[in-house]
């Protein structure tokens, strides 16, 4: 194992671990805010109970997301100092804006929301959770501005041997950003929706608080369908854009060694031989790749060997083909999981409409299992995006091998890799334990507190008398 391997392992493990919690937080807080809006508008206690119960689970998840995010921000400097020197001028700005604009909003208003149930007037308290939701979306936006620059560098000049920003507008109108951002947001919504739906399905199977969980399930099924379709359409846009911006990633995700010919077929399965640079067996769906890449049933897609020659002419000698198997299969896992999500939400809506939901045990069990699929799709999507960009960190400008910190030794890396992965493991176990505990307890444990809340509904923060609530 080399230093480069350890640094990459650490980046991958940190990012993948962090990105379990990020989409879940973005999705859950949005749905919790919707539930609380229903409570404020319709004034029905069940919606308040929903906001509180799902809000509890959101907070557990959010805490782990926040703390792993600090590491995410500092590890560029720790492990990738030459990268940070080269792109800091451009890449640092969105990170700083993310902290100033999004992190402050989220952290302050989450505190106000958690501790403010009995302190703030209802509408102000509702506003707090919406601000947290907006904060998480801002956060996603700015970090994707930074990531999009790595996929498709824009708005800079090379000066003094490094990239210097010369057009901030170009960074935030980066075409890559505007296909990536909606895709990530819809994915996040799907993650939150399938989590709530799966937990609700579990409680319905156990016949606990069926009315409450059925209602939660129905609300999220609509969102799940919207999210699933949104993910698919924005994903298609992204594929079309990939064709123009990073054709090598496209070719690798199709395991397409030679040019496809016109029209291009989509490969469902391939037995990839990366040494011989060919596939020994393939199952193809005619026309489908042309459609994926161009939204029409004609047009050919260049293969990796052609692109390799082009890149050699452009960037000098080197291997510009990313790990093909990983890129190919992560793409198929992502698409497969996405299709399954759309399918599941359609059945869920149909059964709710027919009022057959809680009696249909096999479907409810299936929905419990579906909790995992958005997570699988999110991770596979990022693996495809980041591995498919290799050997580059900044496409066409800087390779991963050039990005590493020269002064960080093997021993230091080993220390941090071991200690951080151990920490992630502990956090994962604790969080799973706490989730299961809270879910088993159910929403009725909120009732005692709610009854207390009934007595102090007048909560004007400027009225000293209101300050007898929870602190």
């Amino acid at each position, binding site marked *: 194992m080399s230093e480069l391997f350890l640094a990459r392992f650490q980046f991958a493990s940190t990012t993948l671990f962090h990105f379990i919690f990020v989409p879940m937080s973005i999705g859950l807080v949005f749905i919790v805010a919707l539930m609380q809006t229903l409570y404020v508008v319709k004034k029905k206690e069940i919606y308040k109970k929903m906001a509180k119960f799902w809000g509890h689970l959101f907070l557990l998840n959010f805490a782990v997301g926040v*703390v792993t995010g*600090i590491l995410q921000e500092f590890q560029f400097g720790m492990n990738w100092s030459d990268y940070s020197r080269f792109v800091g001028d451009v890449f640092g700005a969105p990170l700083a804006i993310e902290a100033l604009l999004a992190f402050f909003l989220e952290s302050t208003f989450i505190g106000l929301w958690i501790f403010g149930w009995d302190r703030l007037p209802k509408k102000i308290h509702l506003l707090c959770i919406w601000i947290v939701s907006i904060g998480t979306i801002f956060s996603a936006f700015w970090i994707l501005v930074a990531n999009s620059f790595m996929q498709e560098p824009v708005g800079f000049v090379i000066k003094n041997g490094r990239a210097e920003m010369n057009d901030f507008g170009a960074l935030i109108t980066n075409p890559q950003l505007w296909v990536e951002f909606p895709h990530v947001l819809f994915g996040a919504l799907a993650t939150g929706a399938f989590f709530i739906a799966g937990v609700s399905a579990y409680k319905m199977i156990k016949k606990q608080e069926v009315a409450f969980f059925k209602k939660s399930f129905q609300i999220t099924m609509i969102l799940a369908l919207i999210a699933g379709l949104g993910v698919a359409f924005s994903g298609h846009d992204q594929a079309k854009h990939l064709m123009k911006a990073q054709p090598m990633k496209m070719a690798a995700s199709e395991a397409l060694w030679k040019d496809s010919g016109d029209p291009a077929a989509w490969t469902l399965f391939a037995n990839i031989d990366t040494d011989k640079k060919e596939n020994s067996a393939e199952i193809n769906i005619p026309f489908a790749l042309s459609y994926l890449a161009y939204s029409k049933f004609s047009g050919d897609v260049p293969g990796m060997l052609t692109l390799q020659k082009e890149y050699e002419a452009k960037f000098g000698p080197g291997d510009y083909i990313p790990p093909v198997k990983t890129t190919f299969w992560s793409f198929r896992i992502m698409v497969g999981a996405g299709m399954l999500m759309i399918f599941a939400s359609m059945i869920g809506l149909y059964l709710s409409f027919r009022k057959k939901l809680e009696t249909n045990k096999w479907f409810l069990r299936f929905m419990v299992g579906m909790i995992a699929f958005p997570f699988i799709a999110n991770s596979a999507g990022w693996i495809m995006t980041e591995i498919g960009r290799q050997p580059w960190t900044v496409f066409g400008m800087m390779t991963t091998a050039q990005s590493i910190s020269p002064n960080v030794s093997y021993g230091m890396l080993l220390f941090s890799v071991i200690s951080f992965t151990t920490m992630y493991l502990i956090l994962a176990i604790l969080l799973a334990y706490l989730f299961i505990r809270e879910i088993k307890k159910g929403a009725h444990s909120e009732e005692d507190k709610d009854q207390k809340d009934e007595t102090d509904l007048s909560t004007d923060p400027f009225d000293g008398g209101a300050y007898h609530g929870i*602190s």
Partner: protein
Amino acid sequence: MAYLNEIWFILVAVLFVGFFFLEGFDFGVGMSMQLLGKDAHERRILINTIGPFWDANEVWLITAGGAIFAAFPHWYATMFSGYYIPFAVLLLALIGRGVAFEFRGKVEKASWIKAWDWVIFFGSLLPPFLLGVLFTSILRGMPIDQDMNMYAGFTDFVNLYSVIGGLAVTVLCLLHGLIFVTLRTEGDLRDRARKLGKRVLLIVLPVLVLFVGVSIMETDIYTVRPIITIPLTVLIVVCYVAALFFMKKERDGWTFLFTGAGIMVTVTMLFTALFPRVMISSINHTFDLTIQNAASGSYSLTVMTIVAISLLPFVLGYQIWSYYVFRKRVSGKEPMTY
């Protein structure tokens, strides 16, 4: 725009001053868990005094990191890779501390709660110490080569000066936190916080004298810009003497103001001594990182200045509002959130 690099040095300094003032007291409250809290209930009250605030306070550090990355990429790269192990430990401490607040109250088992109380204690003790070591060793100079890479050995990080620096920052935070507790609690707990605060203050004064003494020997704090740093040092001492005065009169609000001012002036003095350098090389001063050679281009700094100037007032506004909303003391007789 002129003086962009200077503006960004000041902004980074402001973020650290804000961070040490705000997170300073919640680190102190975290440390007081084991020094002040007699039982799980008292410790719960202590956590709830900083409950709504600690997360936003920590964002000051994250924002400072982000601002350094954007405005001074070389500073960011040199410091974070150079201080690799200290940062790794700092992050582990902050991760543990952050989840501890959320996880602690979720299981009603004595051993579970006790374990998290210790995580909060060490998670609040280590960061100020490590950051103290970081800033003082930066002032003393670290082995940075002509390519701006820092190759430091154990004694570069851990030496008499940096340990005293770490200790100084830690006790300043502890004192500040105890005074915060006097503002947010009632009765016996508040009395004991005052009493312990008095004792800690009597440690703070000699530690500060020691720190100034070693600084004179080990750094150029008092030779590079004595016209500012000497008055600031006097001001620090004035702050803590004033704190002692108000503490004796049991004027907690005033005491808090002065322990806070003490921290803010201390951080300001360190940054004043550092200016215009951001990292000092112990090998050769031509290898120093400065606000010029470590900075981003003027375009990027201009954009970031506009963004920062337009956002900071809002950030300050809603943070102050959140302290206003939660101004009532935590009595422990009513249900608590954490």
